[in-house]
Structures are given as C-alpha cells and as structure tokens.
C-alpha cells in the first residue's frame, strides 16, 4: 500500500488512532496533490482534530502511514516535520511582538539576522501587512492576527500548512472576508493547505477538495460540487447543505430509481447512487434540497397533474423565512409535515404569503434516497 508517490504533498494510508475504547480515527486514507486547498469537514468530535494532530506529529497513529512529499514522517518528531500549523486560537506568543513571533521558527533553525530580516519583510509583504513588524500582538485586529499566524508558518516554507478552524473565533462579517482572503493566500503561496472545519460553507467556498468525516471515518472525498450534488452517503447528504428528509419504506426499486412510501403520508419517487442497493421493503430516507423544490402559487385544490415533475404535494404556507436572496417558505402539507422550499421574493404582491395554498414539486433526479 505505502507506495512512494512524490506527486502528492501529503498522503495518509490506513491511519487509525484510538483513545481507550474510543476509535477517534478509523482507517483513513487520502492523498493531496501539490498546491491545493484541502478541507476536512465534520461535526465536532468526528476525529478531524486528532487526524490533524497526527499529521503535525502531536499524536502517534496506532496504525498506518503519513507521507509528506513522498517520505514517511511517522518517526519524525513534530519539531522536525516540515508541516506547520495554524492553531484554532492562533497561539501567537503574547510576550513577543510580531517580528519575534515570525522570527521564532527561523531562529530555531539558526538563520542569520540578515536572513531573518529579509524573510520577515518578504512574508509580511505577501500577507499585505508590511508595517506591523514592531507591533505587539494585542495591538492587532482579529484579521491581522490571522494573517500573522499564517505568515509565522509560511516564512518557514512548509510542505503542508495545517489550519485548525482558525476562523471560528472571528465574528461573522470578518469570517466571510477571511474566507476569500485565505483562498487568495493559498493561491499566492502555492502551498498545500489542509483546513479543518465544522462549517460547511467555509469548506465549500475555499476548497479544491473536501473530505467529509464522521465518527473517525471519511464518508466521501470530492470537489465541493460533487459533495453537494452527488453525496455518496446519507451522512454527507444530511451534513452538507440543507435538505428536507423523509423516512419511509421502499415499495418499488430498480434501475437507480426508488419509490418510497414515506411515513409522512405521501409517496416519493427518487433516484439512488450506484453504491446503494435498495430493495422492496427496506427502510430508507429520501433527501430533497429546498432549492430543488418548485413552489407554485397558482393552484386549485383538486387539480394537481399539470407539470412534468414526478413528485408533487400541496399544502399551506406556515411561515415565511425572509433572508434576501436566500428566502424560504415552510409549507405544511395535508399530513402536517413541514417542508422547506426556496422561493424568490421580489417584494411584489405576487409573493407567497403565510396561509397561501401552494403546490410543491420536484423531479426524481433531484431527490436522493439512501
């Protein structure tokens, strides 16, 4: 298994780690091509932090191998690995100023004063903070601290930069701005970033590839689009993006198509992935994203057979969740089930209102069943 493949910056093979009876990381394998932005997305406690700490060398895996630029680093202590890490709370040294923080790693390898000066000026330029070298850490804003933490690592030319949810402590506005900035920084340095997060929008916006992790295992690795549109498992479908979900019993299956009798009292037609085989009588769950549900207000109660959609329901709007372009309605169907669907609100009198009778429809290709 452990083939040397220098075309990958980081390769993990069959990594496992347990703490007592808890299997934190369970047989995880992946490799990351050079210069890409790779995210590991998962709920808290899924093992992503343990995985990252193993890559940095703070934890030793029970099994498996970690290779950086094709060389195994399992026996190399953390201070000798060329993997640098941006910590969740950044861990900038408060008793040192910006210059000394960035110089810390360079001094550890015995760089000369001139070299240190040169490199610090250079890296500060690249993170667009050329004048802060003499500042104390507490004088920096949240976003500046973020960039200094990255500069402190990047000045050492790491093979891989690990980022452990560094945006978590920032307020919403700054977080949105930093997402874009991080992506740009990664492009500029052209170094592989491995980014850990529980926030799907961070992962989707920034990454070239995302691994979705749950209970110590990778559920799926793929581009953000692939994860979103073609989730490989129920967990991914539920975790990435919003979904309506209904459980039910399979009443007809075949040819990647399933018909489900939902517990909520209606039948749903859905397609499945190749990896999932469902047969008649199985319990299954169908996932439908709100943006895939079409909402029609021009409807009369007994006549609902006029579109090409394979699934259709009628119900009354329970409430309207206004959020600009991402507005949504909650529709209560006849059986009392609440269904979320995206709507475009223009501010005109044609907009749906609570209490309106609407018709919801979606095509079976847009529903996924596991």
């Amino acid at each position, binding site marked *: 298994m452990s083939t040397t493949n220098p075309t990958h910056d980081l390769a993990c093979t069959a990594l496992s780690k347990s703490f007592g009876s808890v299997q934190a990381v369970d047989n995880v394998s992946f490799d990351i091509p050079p210069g890409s932005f790779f995210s590991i997305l998962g709920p808290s406690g899924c093992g992503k932090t343990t995985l990252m700490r193993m890559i940095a060398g703070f934890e*030793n895996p029970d099994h498996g191998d970690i290779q950086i630029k094709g060389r195994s680093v*399992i*026996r190399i*202590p953390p201070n000798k690995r060329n993997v640098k890490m941006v910590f969740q709370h950044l861990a900038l040294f408060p008793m040192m100023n910006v210059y000394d923080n960035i110089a810390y790693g360079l001094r550890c390898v015995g760089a000369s004063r001139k070299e240190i000066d040169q490199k610090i000026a250079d890296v500060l330029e690249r993170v667009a903070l050329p004048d802060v070298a003499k500042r104390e850490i507490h004088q920096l804003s949240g976003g500046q601290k973020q960039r200094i933490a990255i500069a402190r690592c990047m000045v050492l030319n790491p093979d891989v930069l690990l980022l452990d949810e560094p945006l978590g402590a920032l307020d919403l506005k700054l977080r949105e701005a930093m997402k874009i900035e991080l992506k740009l920084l990664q492009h500029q340095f052209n170094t592989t970033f491995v980014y850990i997060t529980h926030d799907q929008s961070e992962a989707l916006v920034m990454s070239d590839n995302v691994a979705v992790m749950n209970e110590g295992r990778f559920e799926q690795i793929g581009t953000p689009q692939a994860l979103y549109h073609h989730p490989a498992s129920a967990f991914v479908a539920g975790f990435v993006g919003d979904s309506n979900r209904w459980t039910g019993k399979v009443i007809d299956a075949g040819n990647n198509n399933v018909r489900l009798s939902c517990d909520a009292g209606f039948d749903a037609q859905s397609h499945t992935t190749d990896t999932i085989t469902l047969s008649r009588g199985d319990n299954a769950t169908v996932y439908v994203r709100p943006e895939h549900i079409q909402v029609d207000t021009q409807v009369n109660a007994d006549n609902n057979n006029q579109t090409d959609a394979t699934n259709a329901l009628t119900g009354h709007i329970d409430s309207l969740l206004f959020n600009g372009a991402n507005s949504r309605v909650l529709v209560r169907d006849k059986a009392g089930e609440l269904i979320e669907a995206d709507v475009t609100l223009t501010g005109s009198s044609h907009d749906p209102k609570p209490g309106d009778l609407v018709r919801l429809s979606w095509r079976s290709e847009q529903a996924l069943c596991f």
Partner: protein
Amino acid sequence: MAGSRAKDAKKLALILLFTPFALWITLLILLPHVGMMVLSLKEKVAPRVYEYGFDNYINFAQEPIYWNTLLRTGSVSLLVTLLALLIGFPVAYYIAKIAGNRTKGALFLLCLIPLWVSDLIRAFGWILLLRETGVISSALQASGLIDTPIEFLYNDATVIMGLVYTVVLFMIVPLVSTLDGMDNEMIEAGYNLGGNGFTVLRRIIIPYAMPGIVAGCIVVFMLSAGSYLTPILLGGKNSSWFTEQIYDQFISRYNWESGAAFGFVLLVFTSLVVWLGLKLSGQTLSSTVAKS
C-alpha cells in the same frame, strides 16, 4: 516507537519533578512530625537513659494549667475567628462589589501592605499606642478626659483585639477573591426575583462565598492558635497562650520530650477543630484552602 520514547520522556520528567516535592514533604514535614511524635513518647528516667511511654501526655492531662491553657487558646482563637469574619466580611464585600474599579485595586493593595509587615512591628505599634505612657492614654490626659494614665495593655480584650488585627487580612484576601468571581447579575437576579437585602445575603451571597469563608476561617484559626508574639507582647508574660507553654518546655526548661508532646497536642487539637469546621460547613480541604 516514537510513542514509547515520548512516554519514557514523560515518565522521566515526572520522576524529576516528583523528587524535589518528595524530598521537601518527607524530610521537612513528614519525618519531623513522626520524629516529634516519637520524641513525645520518650521520657528521661536518668541522664542519657530514656523509656518509652505516655508519661508526657499523662503529665499534660494531670496538670490543669496545661489543658486550661489549651482550651483557652482554642476558645479565644474561635472567638478571634468569628470576630475576624464579622469584621472582615463587610470590608471584603465592599472591596469586591461596591468600590469602583480604581478604588478597588487601591483598597486591596492597602489591605495587602500590612500583610507584609512583621507581627513584631504591628505588636510594637499597638504597644506604643496602648501602654500606660502610650499615645492614647496621653491623648486622653491632654484632652482632660482622664486624670491618671490608663494601662490598656495586658488584658484579654487587648489580646483579642491584637489577634483580630493580625489575622483579619487573611480573612479578607480569600473573601475578596471569592466574591470577585461572583457574577453581579446573580445578586441583581436575587433582588429582581423579589429578595430583600437580607435574603439575598443569606440565600445567594453567603452560600456562594462559603469556600472563601471556610478557607479564611481555617487559616485565621490556625494562625491565631499558633501565634506567639501577639499574645505575649500584648498580654504580658502571663497571657496563658499554649505556644508559650511549648516555648517554655523547649527553651526554658529544656524538656524537649514534654515540649514535643505539647506540640503534638496542639497539632491534633487544632486539626480536630479544623476537621470539625469542615464537616459542619460541608466543605473539604481541597475545596477551600487548597483551591487557589
């Protein structure tokens, strides 16, 4: 491989760190106390000839002066503890909750500075104020309130006052840090829910401050029972303080065996009182004094 090496390093660090701790506690605390206990069980029957027995303790029990002094030391110390709490709590509450941010720091510092001044100097100051020729007596004479000088020293009230003075800061400091950690909103919520000043104090503030109160009481009681200078200097040679008896046995009579027995009696007695206090208040040593 790397894992087991890291584990070995951790074990080595543990041993290296545990060594000074073990040396300190064993050589300077445990062994001396065991030694003192052994010494207290010895009795000199002839020069350089010793026998083991409980004679030193029997002597102690048979001489009312000794155990009366012990009881007096204990009861006065309890009174001192109570007074220190009653006097100190309002001060601590003022510093922690009422004073503005700037005054708070200044007042706390004012509380701390006398803490670093020797017992001896403080007692000396009281002597200058309270003796027959002292400041207060002279001032009263000068103002015409009294005709003849008054001696304020050498009575129980002065000893108790002096002891309260010496120890009250050790009550205030833990109380301030406990009350400081208390959320103001908790007190406001108490009032908001209809409590009056007294119920808020009794139901919210005091239960919250309990660890600090108990910690302060333990330290104050031990300091008071173990104090030597204040009772002697303010109470005179016949102040009947138990530490004085120990000093007497050890230094004046050179009867170390009996002195060790007395020391052991004091230690057991004070520990018993502290243990009782912890039991009654439902606290433990680690939730009060050992918490920092």
